[in-house]
């Protein structure tokens, strides 16, 4: 079991994406990289920044960045650990999360809105990673 947003977790997520035929099909036209940022909250005292390079149905790279100036992704999505947990446990749809600002998006929302199925499958990939959430 990997702690959410740890290096181990990011690696497991990367592998889950690359093993998923559903994701590969849904995101076959997708080109765009991301920061997924976990904001500090409660026992999560540090800001964690996960980088994912998603390209035509695959994850080319995935790692935790030490400094946010390291990469310049097309999209940045940030939220508290509580909100990320809701998304992964499918209690919060990511599109709903963005509309209510629980997930804060920087980047072209129209592009995300044209790839809704890929977004759903990406969330599905997180559900195959055995995840421990900090209390």
């Amino acid at each position, binding site marked *: 079991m990997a702690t959410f947003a740890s290096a181990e977790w990011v690696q497991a997520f990367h592998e889950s994406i690359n093993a998923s035929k559903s994701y590969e099909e849904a995101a076959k036209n997708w080109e765009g990289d991301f920061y997924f940022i976990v904001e500090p909250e409660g026992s999560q005292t540090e800001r964690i920044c996960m980088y994912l390079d998603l390209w035509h149905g695959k994850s080319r790279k995935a790692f935790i960045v030490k400094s946010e100036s390291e990469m310049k992704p097309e999209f940045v999505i940030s939220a508290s650990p509580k909100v990320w947990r809701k998304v992964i446990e499918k209690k919060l749809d990511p599109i709903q999360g963005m509309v209510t*600002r629980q997930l804060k998006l920087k980047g072209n929302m129209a592009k995300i809105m044209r790839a809704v199925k890929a977004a759903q499958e990406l969330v599905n990939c997180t559900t195959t990673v055995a995840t421990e959430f900090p209390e």
Partner: protein
Amino acid sequence: MWYFANPLIVFGDDALEHLSRIQGKRALIVTDRNVAKLGFAERVGNELAKAGLEYHVFDEVEPDPSVQTIKHGGQVALDYQPDWLIGLGGGSSIDAAKAIWVLYARPDQEPDAINPSEFLNLRQKAHMIAIPTTSGTGAEVTPIIVVTDVEGQRKTGVMSQEVVPDIAILDTSLVLGLPPQITADTGMDALTHAIEGYTSNWRSDFTDGPALIAIKRIFEYLPCAYNNGSDAEARMHMMHAATLASISFGNAMAGLAHSLGHALGGLFHTPHGRAVGLFLPYTMEYLAEAAANLYAEIAHFIGISNGSDLEATQALIDRVRNLAKTLNQPLSVREAGIEQTTYEQALPALVERAENEATTITVARIPESADLEQMFRYAYEGKTVDF
């Protein structure tokens, strides 16, 4: 957590007179040339003048306005410095006004990058009034701007709660002259909004009531408005119904008929209301078992069935088809005049677009690609969806 947003709605006789009571210095009226030719912009301007406001008319909005038009309108606003933006017309004009409003407050913003996470602070520069001249898209009450990607042949809705207009003015006199075809197309759009808003997974207690009233009014008054455009009572109820329907779906979400309709409209330029109305009964058939309880509630509310949930659902589907027939709307894609070989060749693109609409994920039974393809095929032939 979810939201319910709504502007101040001004309705009833002489609703346009509310404009003579607003406070401000300058208003920019955003509209299209046809609406301007009908004298509506002048009527709006005359009321504004009574309130002591100057006004300028930007009437360059085309159907499915381009980014270039929006950016030009944004520059006009920056030059004119209005404290009111007024969207006057159908969905295209009102959405263009919303987008111009954003660019006016945030000249750095790309229209298709509008996103709800970012605080736009629109009201530091101006407030917005929406005045529809169709019944209709309901853009006067939604937090959505439909942006058109001309090259990619698709339309996408971007959202921000801030772009819900401050005021929506529903003046029946503006829709009395609507031609029958537009009355039918926009009326079916409104019906689809209401039924899909009521059956959305994102629905709430706040969105259910408006949807039910809208559905009841549309079934009762749309044929009247279609057959006799001068029927003021019918026009009034249709105008109200369209707004109520959008209060519902704008705060819930539209559904599968919009997914398929957007895809068809993007590639074949079928008018939006005609497209979504065409697909509505097919998507209801697909969702029938999963959403039977909700369709039945609608059917019982409008008094068309006392049977089981599935019987009531079928009665509602039949009622939708009968309404479309009454309005001389195409009941299949073939009847809409789309050639079969061209349609077959477009199927992969249609499916890809439909499955990536946000409106595909908010329904009781989310279709796989194969189901979407089947639905497109069945809708072409006019076959009852039985899978």
